[in-house]
Protein backbone atom coordinates (compact mmCIF):
# COMPACT_ATOMS: atom_id res chain seq x y z
CA UNK A 1 0.00 0.00 0.00
CA UNK A 2 1.46 3.35 -0.85
CA UNK A 3 0.80 7.02 -0.60
CA UNK A 4 2.90 9.11 -2.92
CA UNK A 5 3.23 12.44 -1.14
CA UNK A 6 5.25 14.58 -3.44
CA UNK A 7 5.12 18.32 -3.40
CA UNK A 8 1.74 19.70 -4.28
CA UNK A 9 2.90 20.81 -7.68
CA UNK A 10 4.56 17.53 -8.66
CA UNK A 11 1.45 15.47 -8.05
CA UNK A 12 -0.79 18.10 -9.57
CA UNK A 13 1.40 18.49 -12.65
CA UNK A 14 1.10 14.75 -13.25
CA UNK A 15 -2.62 14.98 -12.72
CA UNK A 16 -2.93 17.88 -15.15
CA UNK A 17 -1.05 15.99 -17.84
CA UNK A 18 -3.29 12.98 -17.32
CA UNK A 19 -6.39 15.19 -17.47
CA UNK A 20 -5.27 16.71 -20.78
CA UNK A 21 -4.43 13.41 -22.42
CA UNK A 22 -7.59 11.67 -21.19
CA UNK A 23 -9.86 14.72 -21.51
CA UNK A 24 -10.86 14.63 -17.84
CA UNK A 25 -12.26 18.05 -16.83
CA UNK A 26 -10.02 18.48 -13.79
CA UNK A 27 -10.93 22.17 -13.55
CA UNK A 28 -14.39 23.62 -14.03
CA UNK A 29 -15.27 27.31 -14.01
CA UNK A 30 -18.84 28.05 -12.99
CA UNK A 31 -20.29 31.38 -14.06
CA UNK A 32 -22.93 31.51 -11.34
CA UNK A 33 -24.44 34.69 -12.71
CA UNK A 34 -23.83 37.47 -15.21
CA UNK A 35 -25.03 39.97 -12.61
CA UNK A 36 -22.35 42.19 -11.14
CA UNK A 37 -22.01 45.03 -8.67
CA UNK A 38 -19.23 46.58 -10.74
CA UNK A 39 -19.31 47.78 -14.33
CA UNK A 40 -15.77 47.13 -15.44
CA UNK A 41 -15.11 48.89 -18.69
CA UNK A 42 -13.07 45.95 -20.01
CA UNK A 43 -15.44 43.11 -19.03
CA UNK A 44 -16.43 40.51 -21.64
CA UNK A 45 -19.95 40.32 -20.27
CA UNK A 46 -22.20 42.45 -22.45
CA UNK A 47 -25.24 42.75 -20.25
CA UNK A 48 -24.83 42.42 -16.50
CA UNK A 49 -28.08 40.56 -16.02
CA UNK A 50 -29.46 37.04 -16.29
CA UNK A 51 -32.38 36.02 -18.46
CA UNK A 52 -34.97 35.23 -15.75
CA UNK A 53 -36.43 32.25 -17.59
CA UNK A 54 -33.02 30.65 -18.11
CA UNK A 55 -31.36 30.83 -14.69
CA UNK A 56 -30.91 27.61 -12.77
CA UNK A 57 -32.74 26.59 -9.65
CA UNK A 58 -30.72 25.63 -6.59
CA UNK A 59 -31.45 21.97 -7.29
CA UNK A 60 -30.20 22.24 -10.85
CA UNK A 61 -26.95 23.82 -9.68
CA UNK A 62 -26.54 20.85 -7.33
CA UNK A 63 -27.15 18.55 -10.29
CA UNK A 64 -24.48 20.36 -12.31
CA UNK A 65 -22.04 19.96 -9.42
CA UNK A 66 -22.76 16.26 -9.15
CA UNK A 67 -22.21 15.72 -12.87
CA UNK A 68 -18.89 17.58 -12.73
CA UNK A 69 -17.84 15.58 -9.71
CA UNK A 70 -18.68 12.31 -11.46
CA UNK A 71 -16.79 13.47 -14.57
CA UNK A 72 -13.57 13.93 -12.59
CA UNK A 73 -13.50 17.62 -11.64
CA UNK A 74 -11.40 18.45 -8.60
CA UNK A 75 -10.87 22.20 -8.94
CA UNK A 76 -14.01 24.28 -8.97
CA UNK A 77 -13.82 28.00 -9.73
CA UNK A 78 -16.89 30.04 -8.79
CA UNK A 79 -17.13 33.22 -10.79
CA UNK A 80 -19.54 35.59 -12.49
CA UNK A 81 -20.31 38.45 -13.01
CA UNK A 82 -19.95 38.49 -9.26
CA UNK A 83 -20.46 34.93 -8.03
CA UNK A 84 -21.84 36.04 -4.67
CA UNK A 85 -24.83 37.71 -6.36
CA UNK A 86 -26.28 34.32 -7.27
CA UNK A 87 -29.26 33.99 -4.89
CA UNK A 88 -28.20 30.42 -4.05
CA UNK A 89 -24.50 31.21 -3.63
CA UNK A 90 -24.21 29.94 -0.07
CA UNK A 91 -26.12 26.73 -0.78
CA UNK A 92 -23.99 26.06 -3.86
CA UNK A 93 -20.82 26.64 -1.83
CA UNK A 94 -21.99 24.26 0.86
CA UNK A 95 -22.95 21.62 -1.68
CA UNK A 96 -19.53 21.93 -3.38
CA UNK A 97 -17.79 21.51 -0.03
CA UNK A 98 -19.80 18.39 0.73
CA UNK A 99 -18.79 16.98 -2.66
CA UNK A 100 -15.10 17.51 -1.78
CA UNK A 101 -14.16 19.93 -4.54
CA UNK A 102 -11.23 22.27 -4.09
CA UNK A 103 -13.18 25.53 -4.23
CA UNK A 104 -11.86 28.86 -5.36
CA UNK A 105 -13.72 32.01 -6.26
CA UNK A 106 -12.95 34.94 -8.53
CA UNK A 107 -14.52 37.96 -6.87
CA UNK A 108 -14.31 41.72 -6.61
CA UNK A 109 -14.80 41.41 -2.84
CA UNK A 110 -17.58 43.99 -2.62
CA UNK A 111 -19.87 41.52 -0.86
CA UNK A 112 -17.17 40.60 1.67
CA UNK A 113 -17.23 43.53 4.06
CA UNK A 114 -17.52 41.90 7.49
CA UNK A 115 -15.57 39.31 9.43
CA UNK A 116 -18.74 37.25 9.63
CA UNK A 117 -19.01 36.98 5.86
CA UNK A 118 -15.33 36.07 5.51
CA UNK A 119 -15.68 33.45 8.23
CA UNK A 120 -18.78 32.06 6.56
CA UNK A 121 -16.77 31.65 3.35
CA UNK A 122 -14.01 29.89 5.25
CA UNK A 123 -16.44 27.60 7.03
CA UNK A 124 -18.23 27.01 3.73
CA UNK A 125 -15.07 25.47 2.31
CA UNK A 126 -13.61 28.29 0.22
CA UNK A 127 -9.92 27.50 -0.21
CA UNK A 128 -8.81 30.33 -2.45
CA UNK A 129 -10.16 33.78 -3.29
CA UNK A 130 -8.79 35.44 -6.40
CA UNK A 131 -9.48 39.14 -6.11
CA UNK A 132 -9.67 41.45 -9.09
CA UNK A 133 -7.56 44.47 -8.19
CA UNK A 134 -6.50 46.81 -10.97
CA UNK A 135 -4.32 49.35 -9.24
CA UNK A 136 -3.05 50.59 -5.90
CA UNK A 137 -4.40 53.98 -6.95
CA UNK A 138 -8.08 54.17 -5.97
CA UNK A 139 -8.81 56.61 -8.78
CA UNK A 140 -7.53 54.22 -11.45
CA UNK A 141 -9.20 51.16 -9.94
CA UNK A 142 -12.55 52.90 -9.49
CA UNK A 143 -12.39 54.32 -13.00
CA UNK A 144 -11.90 50.80 -14.38
CA UNK A 145 -14.69 49.27 -12.29
CA UNK A 146 -16.92 52.31 -12.83
CA UNK A 147 -17.93 52.10 -9.17
CA UNK A 148 -16.74 54.84 -6.87
CA UNK A 149 -15.44 53.43 -3.59
CA UNK A 150 -14.88 49.94 -4.99
CA UNK A 151 -11.13 50.11 -4.32
CA UNK A 152 -11.63 50.66 -0.60
CA UNK A 153 -14.06 47.75 -0.40
CA UNK A 154 -11.85 45.40 -2.40
CA UNK A 155 -8.85 46.18 -0.18
CA UNK A 156 -10.97 45.56 2.91
CA UNK A 157 -12.11 42.20 1.54
CA UNK A 158 -8.51 41.13 0.97
CA UNK A 159 -7.69 41.77 4.63
CA UNK A 160 -10.84 40.10 5.96
CA UNK A 161 -10.29 36.97 3.89
CA UNK A 162 -6.66 36.68 4.96
CA UNK A 163 -7.63 37.11 8.61
CA UNK A 164 -9.77 34.02 8.23
CA UNK A 165 -6.89 32.05 6.75
CA UNK A 166 -8.31 31.95 3.23
CA UNK A 167 -5.58 32.04 0.60
CA UNK A 168 -5.84 35.21 -1.48
CA UNK A 169 -4.41 35.80 -4.93
CA UNK A 170 -4.60 38.99 -6.96
CA UNK A 171 -5.78 39.09 -10.57
CA UNK A 172 -4.88 42.18 -12.55
CA UNK A 173 -5.92 42.83 -16.12
CA UNK A 174 -3.56 45.33 -17.69
CA UNK A 175 -5.08 47.93 -19.99
CA UNK A 176 -3.93 51.29 -21.25
CA UNK A 177 -5.55 52.74 -18.12
CA UNK A 178 -3.45 50.98 -15.48
CA UNK A 179 -0.38 49.41 -17.09
CA UNK A 180 1.97 52.30 -16.40
CA UNK A 181 1.23 52.17 -12.68
CA UNK A 182 1.36 48.40 -12.45
CA UNK A 183 4.68 47.96 -10.70
CA UNK A 184 3.40 49.83 -7.65
CA UNK A 185 0.86 47.04 -7.32
CA UNK A 186 3.51 44.40 -7.93
CA UNK A 187 5.68 45.76 -5.12
CA UNK A 188 2.71 45.91 -2.77
CA UNK A 189 1.84 42.29 -3.55
CA UNK A 190 5.42 41.20 -2.92
CA UNK A 191 5.42 43.08 0.39
CA UNK A 192 2.10 41.49 1.40
CA UNK A 193 3.15 38.05 0.11
CA UNK A 194 0.15 37.98 -2.21
CA UNK A 195 0.61 35.91 -5.37
CA UNK A 196 -0.42 37.93 -8.39
CA UNK A 197 -1.42 37.03 -11.90
CA UNK A 198 -1.44 39.69 -14.58
CA UNK A 199 -2.91 39.51 -18.05
CA UNK A 200 -2.72 41.89 -20.97
CA UNK A 201 -5.47 40.22 -23.01
CA UNK A 202 -8.61 42.34 -23.09
CA UNK A 203 -11.34 40.15 -24.56
CA UNK A 204 -14.10 41.40 -26.85
CA UNK A 205 -17.55 41.25 -25.32
CA UNK A 206 -19.26 37.91 -25.76
CA UNK A 207 -21.96 39.43 -28.00
CA UNK A 208 -19.27 40.43 -30.49
CA UNK A 209 -19.02 44.06 -29.38
CA UNK A 210 -15.39 45.06 -29.98
CA UNK A 211 -15.46 48.30 -27.95
CA UNK A 212 -13.39 46.77 -25.16
CA UNK A 213 -10.41 46.14 -27.42
CA UNK A 214 -9.85 49.90 -27.56
CA UNK A 215 -8.76 49.59 -23.94
CA UNK A 216 -5.86 47.31 -24.77
CA UNK A 217 -2.41 48.61 -23.93
CA UNK A 218 -0.60 50.17 -26.86
CA UNK A 219 2.43 48.51 -28.38
CA UNK A 220 4.61 51.20 -26.81
CA UNK A 221 3.11 50.54 -23.38
CA UNK A 222 3.53 46.77 -23.79
CA UNK A 223 7.15 47.19 -24.80
CA UNK A 224 7.78 49.35 -21.75
CA UNK A 225 5.96 46.92 -19.47
CA UNK A 226 7.78 43.79 -20.62
CA UNK A 227 11.13 45.61 -20.62
CA UNK A 228 10.62 46.82 -17.06
CA UNK A 229 9.40 43.40 -15.97
CA UNK A 230 12.48 41.75 -17.50
CA UNK A 231 14.73 44.25 -15.75
CA UNK A 232 13.10 43.64 -12.37
CA UNK A 233 12.66 39.90 -12.75
CA UNK A 234 14.78 38.27 -15.48
CA UNK A 235 12.93 34.88 -15.31
CA UNK A 236 9.90 36.71 -16.69
CA UNK A 237 11.54 37.20 -20.08
CA UNK A 238 9.10 35.65 -22.56
CA UNK A 239 10.23 32.19 -23.62
CA UNK A 240 10.75 31.07 -27.18
CA UNK A 241 8.01 28.45 -27.61
CA UNK A 242 9.32 25.45 -29.49
CA UNK A 243 6.40 23.13 -30.02
CA UNK A 244 5.68 20.37 -32.50
CA UNK A 245 2.95 21.21 -35.00
CA UNK A 246 0.94 18.30 -33.61
CA UNK A 247 0.75 19.88 -30.14
CA UNK A 248 -2.49 21.21 -28.79
CA UNK A 249 -2.78 24.99 -28.70
CA UNK A 250 -4.48 25.05 -25.31
CA UNK A 251 -6.47 23.05 -22.80
CA UNK A 252 -9.94 23.85 -24.15
CA UNK A 253 -12.42 20.97 -23.69
CA UNK A 254 -9.68 18.69 -22.39
CA UNK A 255 -8.50 19.25 -18.82
CA UNK A 256 -10.90 22.10 -18.22
CA UNK A 257 -14.44 23.16 -18.93
CA UNK A 258 -16.89 25.88 -17.95
CA UNK A 259 -20.59 26.19 -17.22
CA UNK A 260 -22.51 29.39 -17.92
CA UNK A 261 -25.31 30.79 -15.70
CA UNK A 262 -27.88 28.81 -17.70
CA UNK A 263 -26.21 25.45 -17.12
CA UNK A 264 -24.69 25.14 -20.58
CA UNK A 265 -21.39 23.31 -20.82
CA UNK A 266 -18.53 25.19 -22.54
CA UNK A 267 -14.99 24.16 -23.45
CA UNK A 268 -13.61 27.07 -21.44
CA UNK A 269 -14.61 30.58 -20.44
CA UNK A 270 -13.26 32.12 -23.64
CA UNK A 271 -14.82 29.69 -26.11
CA UNK A 272 -18.52 30.46 -25.72
CA UNK A 273 -20.00 27.86 -28.06
CA UNK A 274 -22.36 25.73 -25.96
CA UNK A 275 -22.04 21.94 -25.98
CA UNK A 276 -25.60 21.73 -24.62
CA UNK A 277 -27.43 21.80 -21.31
CA UNK A 278 -25.68 20.02 -18.49
CA UNK A 279 -28.98 20.01 -16.61
CA UNK A 280 -30.81 17.89 -19.14
CA UNK A 281 -28.00 15.90 -20.77
CA UNK A 282 -25.41 13.49 -19.35
CA UNK A 283 -21.97 15.05 -19.10
CA UNK A 284 -20.42 12.39 -21.34
CA UNK A 285 -22.90 13.03 -24.14
CA UNK A 286 -21.97 16.72 -24.25
CA UNK A 287 -18.27 16.19 -23.59
CA UNK A 288 -17.95 13.79 -26.51
CA UNK A 289 -20.29 15.66 -28.84
CA UNK A 290 -19.08 16.79 -32.28
CA UNK A 291 -18.97 20.38 -31.00
CA UNK A 292 -16.72 19.46 -28.09
CA UNK A 293 -14.47 17.30 -30.25
CA UNK A 294 -14.14 20.11 -32.79
CA UNK A 295 -12.54 22.35 -30.15
CA UNK A 296 -10.64 19.59 -28.34
CA UNK A 297 -8.77 18.39 -31.37
CA UNK A 298 -7.43 21.70 -32.65
CA UNK A 299 -3.65 21.73 -32.93
CA UNK A 300 -0.91 24.21 -33.70
CA UNK A 301 -0.76 23.06 -37.31
CA UNK A 302 -4.40 24.16 -37.75
CA UNK A 303 -3.64 27.83 -37.07
CA UNK A 304 -3.72 30.16 -40.02
CA UNK A 305 -0.83 32.56 -40.47
CA UNK A 306 1.51 30.86 -38.01
CA UNK A 307 5.14 30.99 -39.08
CA UNK A 308 6.22 27.32 -39.20
CA UNK A 309 5.65 26.36 -35.55
CA UNK A 310 8.13 23.51 -35.90
CA UNK A 311 10.95 25.71 -37.13
CA UNK A 312 12.80 27.87 -34.68
CA UNK A 313 9.94 28.47 -32.30
CA UNK A 314 7.51 31.33 -31.82
CA UNK A 315 6.14 33.77 -29.24
CA UNK A 316 2.46 33.54 -30.05
CA UNK A 317 -0.05 32.48 -27.41
CA UNK A 318 -3.20 31.96 -29.39
CA UNK A 319 -6.68 31.99 -27.86
CA UNK A 320 -9.41 30.43 -30.01
CA UNK A 321 -12.17 32.26 -28.20
CA UNK A 322 -10.59 35.65 -28.58
CA UNK A 323 -9.85 35.05 -32.27
CA UNK A 324 -13.42 33.89 -32.86
CA UNK A 325 -14.88 37.00 -31.24
CA UNK A 326 -12.46 39.30 -32.98
CA UNK A 327 -12.21 37.91 -36.49
CA UNK A 328 -15.01 35.37 -36.79
CA UNK A 329 -12.46 32.60 -37.25
CA UNK A 330 -10.94 30.87 -34.21
CA UNK A 331 -7.93 29.74 -36.22
CA UNK A 332 -6.82 33.13 -37.49
CA UNK A 333 -3.95 34.86 -35.71
CA UNK A 334 -5.39 38.23 -34.80
CA UNK A 335 -3.47 41.50 -35.18
CA UNK A 336 -3.49 41.74 -31.38
CA UNK A 337 -1.86 38.34 -30.84
CA UNK A 338 0.70 39.17 -33.51
CA UNK A 339 1.39 42.52 -31.84
CA UNK A 340 1.95 40.79 -28.52
CA UNK A 341 4.16 38.14 -30.10
CA UNK A 342 6.22 40.86 -31.75
CA UNK A 343 6.73 42.65 -28.42
CA UNK A 344 7.73 39.42 -26.69
CA UNK A 345 10.13 38.55 -29.47
CA UNK A 346 11.76 41.94 -29.10
CA UNK A 347 12.18 41.48 -25.34
CA UNK A 348 13.53 37.98 -25.84
CA UNK A 349 16.25 39.09 -28.23
CA UNK A 350 17.10 42.29 -26.33
CA UNK A 351 17.16 40.88 -22.80
CA UNK A 352 17.15 37.09 -22.95
CA UNK A 353 20.03 34.70 -22.83
CA UNK A 354 19.87 33.48 -26.41
CA UNK A 355 23.05 31.48 -26.54
Amino acid sequence: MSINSLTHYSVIDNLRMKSIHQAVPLQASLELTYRCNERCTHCYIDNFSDAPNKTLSKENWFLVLQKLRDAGTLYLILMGGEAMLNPYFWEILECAREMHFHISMITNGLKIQTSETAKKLHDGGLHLATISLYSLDPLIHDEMTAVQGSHVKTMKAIELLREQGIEVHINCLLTRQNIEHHFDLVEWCVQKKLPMKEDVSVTPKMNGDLSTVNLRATEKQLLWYYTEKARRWPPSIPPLLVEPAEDYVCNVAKGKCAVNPYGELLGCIEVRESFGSLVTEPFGTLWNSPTALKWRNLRLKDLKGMKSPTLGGHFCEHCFGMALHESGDPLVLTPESQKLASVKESIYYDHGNND
Partner: protein
Amino acid sequence: MSLNAPLRVQRKSVPWQEIDGQAIILSPKTNKAHELNASATLLWHLMEQARTLDEMAKKMTDEFEIDLVSACRDVESILERFVEEGLVEYQ
Protein backbone atom coordinates in the same frame (compact mmCIF):
# COMPACT_ATOMS: atom_id res chain seq x y z
CA MET B 1 -1.44 2.71 17.92
CA SER B 2 -2.86 -0.73 18.68
CA LEU B 3 -5.39 -2.86 16.91
CA ASN B 4 -6.88 -3.67 20.31
CA ALA B 5 -7.78 -0.08 20.97
CA PRO B 6 -11.43 0.63 20.23
CA LEU B 7 -10.54 3.61 18.12
CA ARG B 8 -12.52 4.47 15.05
CA VAL B 9 -11.07 6.58 12.32
CA GLN B 10 -12.83 8.70 9.72
CA ARG B 11 -11.54 10.85 6.92
CA LYS B 12 -11.90 14.61 7.23
CA SER B 13 -13.76 16.75 4.74
CA VAL B 14 -10.88 17.65 2.44
CA PRO B 15 -10.77 18.14 -1.34
CA TRP B 16 -10.17 14.93 -3.24
CA GLN B 17 -10.99 13.20 -6.50
CA GLU B 18 -10.47 9.79 -8.02
CA ILE B 19 -9.08 9.34 -11.51
CA ASP B 20 -8.22 5.95 -12.99
CA GLY B 21 -8.84 4.23 -9.67
CA GLN B 22 -6.35 6.43 -7.85
CA ALA B 23 -7.43 8.98 -5.27
CA ILE B 24 -5.77 12.40 -5.28
CA ILE B 25 -6.13 14.09 -1.90
CA LEU B 26 -5.30 17.71 -1.15
CA SER B 27 -4.17 18.51 2.37
CA PRO B 28 -5.20 22.01 3.44
CA LYS B 29 -2.98 21.62 6.51
CA THR B 30 0.30 21.05 4.65
CA ASN B 31 -0.68 22.25 1.16
CA LYS B 32 0.48 18.94 -0.27
CA ALA B 33 -1.20 16.68 -2.76
CA HIS B 34 -1.19 12.93 -2.22
CA GLU B 35 -1.59 10.29 -4.86
CA LEU B 36 -2.86 6.98 -3.51
CA ASN B 37 -2.50 3.57 -5.09
CA ALA B 38 -5.46 1.23 -5.45
CA SER B 39 -5.30 -0.29 -1.96
CA ALA B 40 -4.78 3.06 -0.22
CA THR B 41 -7.66 4.41 -2.29
CA LEU B 42 -9.85 1.61 -0.99
CA LEU B 43 -8.85 2.56 2.53
CA TRP B 44 -9.79 6.17 1.82
CA HIS B 45 -13.23 5.05 0.64
CA LEU B 46 -13.72 2.88 3.71
CA MET B 47 -13.05 5.86 5.94
CA GLU B 48 -16.00 7.75 4.55
CA GLN B 49 -17.61 6.29 7.64
CA ALA B 50 -15.86 5.79 10.98
CA ARG B 51 -14.07 2.41 11.00
CA THR B 52 -11.92 0.51 13.40
CA LEU B 53 -8.44 -0.44 12.29
CA ASP B 54 -9.19 -4.14 12.26
CA GLU B 55 -12.33 -3.59 10.20
CA MET B 56 -10.21 -1.92 7.57
CA ALA B 57 -7.44 -4.52 7.73
CA LYS B 58 -10.00 -7.30 7.33
CA LYS B 59 -11.46 -5.56 4.29
CA MET B 60 -7.99 -5.32 2.80
CA THR B 61 -7.53 -9.08 3.07
CA ASP B 62 -10.89 -9.54 1.33
CA GLU B 63 -9.92 -7.33 -1.59
CA PHE B 64 -6.22 -8.02 -2.02
CA GLU B 65 -3.96 -11.04 -1.70
CA ILE B 66 -2.55 -10.10 1.66
CA ASP B 67 -2.56 -11.75 5.09
CA LEU B 68 -4.13 -10.09 8.13
CA VAL B 69 -0.84 -9.30 9.89
CA SER B 70 0.56 -7.56 6.82
CA ALA B 71 -2.73 -5.77 6.25
CA CYS B 72 -2.74 -4.46 9.83
CA ARG B 73 0.82 -3.23 9.46
CA ASP B 74 0.02 -1.48 6.20
CA VAL B 75 -3.16 0.12 7.52
CA GLU B 76 -1.35 1.43 10.59
CA SER B 77 1.44 2.77 8.46
CA ILE B 78 -0.76 4.67 6.08
CA LEU B 79 -2.98 6.00 8.85
CA GLU B 80 0.08 7.50 10.49
CA ARG B 81 0.74 9.38 7.27
CA PHE B 82 -2.87 10.52 7.06
CA VAL B 83 -2.71 11.77 10.65
CA GLU B 84 0.50 13.71 9.95
CA GLU B 85 -1.19 15.39 7.01
CA GLY B 86 -4.36 16.17 8.96
CA LEU B 87 -6.53 14.08 6.66
CA VAL B 88 -8.27 11.87 9.25
CA GLU B 89 -9.56 12.08 12.76
CA TYR B 90 -9.95 9.49 15.49
CA GLN B 91 -13.20 9.06 17.34
